[in-house]
């Protein structure tokens, strides 16, 4: 029973190798079977250890805890594990009828699942680094999977930028090791209270935070994300936006917990980093015309909102940020999967050229509308819950509240723009029946609605806070939402649709690779200034 984490990590790895070796015709069944076994084991494990997660700490090999590698779980990692399993279910259902090269695709996909589950459970810093690099390499291969020109350039941009970020993370690990003599995270958390506050400690903190920021796509090192998520296949984009980016945020939370004993005041700095990320993401999203690029920039902006929640010292707002992580995984995957189907039918990615989706593909339209309502924060859907928690954590007249309000308006404007695709006459014929894709999208849409209304058991079980005051049925919430959409529509009609010169300039602004690295160093120096020199 206590070894289930290891089995959970190795089932996908071994399954992926078996799928690659024996090119059976019905490999989908094997994939489903493996996923089912893992889900059952995970549920069993959670129910067994609920309430007593300190007992889940195992050291592989039975060695002394400060020398060997150990795995540990708690409520947060269990919730992420369930999210991982669910997202992978969606992806393998969606890509059910994929094609001839399915073996290689499933090989990389399942290996990634095993690696990601290891990342969530690992308690050893160098092990985290190995999993980090593995994720980077597999995601690079998945981005370049389509083998067209733009995939290659996105893949190499992603690979080099993320590798340099992860090497900075390794520098942080080195400095910690020589300070503490061990790289076991639970041990370091306890030892942190006894160690004095030195420049070495702060330098290791900022190196690790700098490395994580590249992976989590924070401002100003997020430039790899729109490229990578915009050119990958829809299922891969859904996976990346929904889950892999959250891996970086999960590590952000874990490392801040590691350094809790040292008492760094990181809250303000990371709030403003999150705010900048959110604002810049929305600005770029408003200016784009390519549907997948719009969604990718929205991922950046939602990550900013999550960071605004995660950086706060108030426990409720913090858990609002964690909850937004889950909600975003649901609705962003839904939007990407739907966008993938629409693009395949209409053969173009520009929002301006797609019209009449509501008549041509009614089922997909319903799912996309559910996704759009969730991301803009409509009541009765899940985005509303987490956004409200974060917003109500700030005082009504503070700068923070208005920043979040502005980001909400920007998001709504962008989706009003995207909603234009639904209107208009039927222009393309759509004879195909896509059972697999529709099933996946329906499950995600149902998830959005369920989490929007019946979320109390989830939050009590995983976070310990019921949040029951937020979701009460209050006519004022509908009124607020209507006002937001109204303002968004005004902005759309009079500013965005005219495509003024500034918008065009923003759209064509490309950050070259050397500039991205230059900006990364500026970010590191800003971190240094904030944490060491001030």
């Amino acid at each position, binding site marked *: 029973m206590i070894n289930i984490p290891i089995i959970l990590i190795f089932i996908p790895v071994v399954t992926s190798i078996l799928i690659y070796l024996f090119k059976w015709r019905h490999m989908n069944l094997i994939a489903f079977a493996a996923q089912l076994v893992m889900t059952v084991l995970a549920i069993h494990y959670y129910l067994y250890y609920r309430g007593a997660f300190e007992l889940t700490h195992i050291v592989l090999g039975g060695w002394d805890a400060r020398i060997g590698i150990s795995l540990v779980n708690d409520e947060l990692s269990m919730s992420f594990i369930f999210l991982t399993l669910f997202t992978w279910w969606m992806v393998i259902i969606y890509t059910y009828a994929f094609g001839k090269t399915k073996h290689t695709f499933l090989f990389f996909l399942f290996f990634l699942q095993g690696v990601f589950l290891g990342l969530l459970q690992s308690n050893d810093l160098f092990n985290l680094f190995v999993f980090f690099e593995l994720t980077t390499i597999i995601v690079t291969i998945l981005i370049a999977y389509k083998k067209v020109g733009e995939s290659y*350039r996105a893949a190499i941009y992603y690979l080099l930028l993320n590798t340099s970020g992860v*090497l900075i993370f390794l520098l942080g690990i*080195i400095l910690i090791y020589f300070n503490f003599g061990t790289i076991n995270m639970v041990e370091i958390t306890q030892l942190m209270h006894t160690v004095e506050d030195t420049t070495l400690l702060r330098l290791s903190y900022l190196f690790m935070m700098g490395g994580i920021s590249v992976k989590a796509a924070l401002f100003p090192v997020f430039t790899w994300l729109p490229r990578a998520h915009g050119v990958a296949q829809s299922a891969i984009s859904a996976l990346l936006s929904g889950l892999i980016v959250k891996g970086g945020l999960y590590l952000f939370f874990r490392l801040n917990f590691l350094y809790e004993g040292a008492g760094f005041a990181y809250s303000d700095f990371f709030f403003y980093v999150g705010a900048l990320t959110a604002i810049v993401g929305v600005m770029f999203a408003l200016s784009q015309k390519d549907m997948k690029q719009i969604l990718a920039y929205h991922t950046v902006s939602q990550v900013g909102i999550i960071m605004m929640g995660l950086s706060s010292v108030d426990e409720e707002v913090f858990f609002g940020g964690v909850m937004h992580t889950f909600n975003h995984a649901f609705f962003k995957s839904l939007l990407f999967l739907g966008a993938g189907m629409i693009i395949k039918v209409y053969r173009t990615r520009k929002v301006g050229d797609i019209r009449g989706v509501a008549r041509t593909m009614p089922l997909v339209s319903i799912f996309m509308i559910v996704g759009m309502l969730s991301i803009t924060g409509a009541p009765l859907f899940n985005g509303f819950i987490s956004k409200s928690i974060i917003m109500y954590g700030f005082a009504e007249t503070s700068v923070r509240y208005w920043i979040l309000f502005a980001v909400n308006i920007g998001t709504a404007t962008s989706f009003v723009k995207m909603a234009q695709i639904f209107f208009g006459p039927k222009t393309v014929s759509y004879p195909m029946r896509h059972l697999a894709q529709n099933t996946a999208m329906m499950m995600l849409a149902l998830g959005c609605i369920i989490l929007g209304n019946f979320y109390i058991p989830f939050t009590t079980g995983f976070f310990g806070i019921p949040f029951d005051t937020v979701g009460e049925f209050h006519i004022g919430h509908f009124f607020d939402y209507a006002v937001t959409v109204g303002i968004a529509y005004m902005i759309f009609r009079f500013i965005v649709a005219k495509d003024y010169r500034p918008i065009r300039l923003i759209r064509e602004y*490309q950050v070259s690779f050397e500039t991205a690295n230059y900006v990364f160093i500026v970010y590191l120096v800003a971190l240094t200034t904030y944490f060491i020199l001030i």
Partner: protein
Amino acid sequence: MNPILTFLVVLIGFYGLSTSTNIIKSVFSVTIIESGVILLFLNLGNFEPGSIPIINDETVMIVDPLPQALMITTIVIGSTVTAMALMLCIKVFHQYGTVEWKEILRREDIKS
């Protein structure tokens, strides 16, 4: 003194990353950064005097073997990242005809 100079190697690698307009130079810069990080860890590991971590009957004290083991893993990881990056460079060259970053990121006409 040694760790400080090795960190200088890492910074040189970052300088290279931030000023090279050519993809191959960026790959080289990442390799330099990685070599610098590996040397830094090994240098810090040898901080206290000792002999190599292979014991026979006369060993008095050894150097810390953990950094050396971790760096073996890092070297393997670094070489695989370099291999993948170079293969992607070749493919980018086949598609775009150039290996300059600005050209590649600007051209919108290559879609398939």
